[in-house]
């Protein structure tokens, strides 16, 4: 390796230490080094959001981050959304509302929604649409994705004590 770096990344609760080259993108690290192929690559210009994962709690396009930059970070991918065999409310809601068809964009959309809903417990439809503008879907027309995120927000409000709201990133 030309310029090997030792990194330790916690992915879905497991700590992985690997020697990697700096050119490796986080999405390549997840898919190829760790064989976590639930995170997808849909474009090469940081547009489509299929590769979105949580990095230290923030929805991040893993195609636009070097794996070396994730040294010490906590990463959650679609494979880590369910806890102890129990699906995350967003997963249940996507299935319930038919928020997916081919399923390729779905992991990224769910991850973005998780980040969003953790900061905005009772979003309007317009806020939901603004939140997922960086996740393209060609199958669903977004209608049922919006429904799914709204449904998940209701369940998350019921199950968790609603988080204090932070200002939503909505268009003024």
């Amino acid at each position, binding site marked *: 390796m*030309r*310029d090997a*770096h030792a990194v330790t990344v916690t992915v879905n609760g497991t700590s992985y230490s690997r020697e990697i*080259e*700096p*050119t490796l*993108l986080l999405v*390549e690290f997840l898919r190829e080094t760790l064989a976590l192929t639930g995170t997808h690559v849909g474009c*090469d*210009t*940081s*547009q489509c*959001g299929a590769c*979105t994962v949580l*990095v230290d709690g*923030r*929805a*991040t*396009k893993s*195609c*636009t*981050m*070097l794996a*070396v*930059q994730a*040294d010490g970070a906590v990463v959650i991918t679609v494979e880590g959304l369910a806890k102890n065999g129990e699906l995350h409310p967003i997963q249940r809601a996507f299935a319930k509302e038919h928020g997916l068809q081919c399923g390729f964009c779905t992991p990224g959309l769910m991850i*973005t929604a998780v*980040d*969003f809903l953790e900061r905005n417990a009772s979003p309007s439809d317009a806020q939901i649409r*603004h*939140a*997922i*503008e*960086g*996740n393209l879907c060609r199958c669903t027309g977004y209608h049922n994705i919006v429904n799914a995120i709204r449904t998940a927000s209701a369940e998350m409000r019921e199950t968790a004590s609603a988080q204090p709201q*932070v*200002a939503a*990133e*909505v*268009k*003024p």
Partner: protein
Amino acid sequence: MITHPFTYQAPATIEEAVKQLGQSGDAKVIAGGHSLLPLMKLGLAQPETLVDLRRIASLREIRTEADGTIVIGALVTHRDLVHDKTVRAKLAALSDAASEVGDLQVRARGTIGGSLAHADSAADEPAPTLAYDATIRAIGPKGRRDIPARDFFKGTFETALAPNEILAEIRFSAPAGRTGGAYAKFAHPASGFAVTGVAAVVTLKADGTVERAAIAVSGAAAAAYRATAAEKALTSTKGDAKAIADTAAKAADGITALSDLAASAEYRKHLVTVYAKRAIERAIERARG
């Protein structure tokens, strides 16, 4: 995929970072990576060395100094800007602009320092930075250097930063009295970048007349610019509909507008006037409180 090899360093202090930056002929600073990595993936940027600022915690802060100056560290993300109460209260145009950058994921990781240093003509935050007359503090081998925003943006991807300098923080004087700011944007329908983004910062006198107006525009020309003719037109008016319309009509005066698939030069200039009007209206509304 990045096929061009490079070496990577993540120093703990800015001094070290400056040193490392100077050690390679073609070294680049990386923060959130949302400007640089897309270029590297396309092969349009092929640095030999990347100096990552992520370990330099002090650059993540937003703080207010004793004299009221609001200091925003280079590593502050767009999202953090949106959520910061001080920024929202005092620098609303910046808060607005940050909320319009890219998308949720880009805002989560992209930084104001990266956006300004990269100086994409279609980036959002240069406009409010100009409109608030901010100062950009750079750290280089010879120590720090303060660059007024007006002197900072030189052209597309061109700033006053020297290759061995690092943009460390952006300093905003606390706006005086009845000041309102706003940013209004016509986004590129595909990329989300600003086809036109107008920041307006308006200070009103006690009698409601405009004491000071700052109008800055992103996206329309090779670099973000201050629309000085428009600013002059608004100053000393009552900020009524006619004054705003007359002002907005001058916001694209004298520029060489960009032209692309999303908007011809002619349409872009028109959009500047429309979005100038919208930004000024909201800024005045906010100034009036």
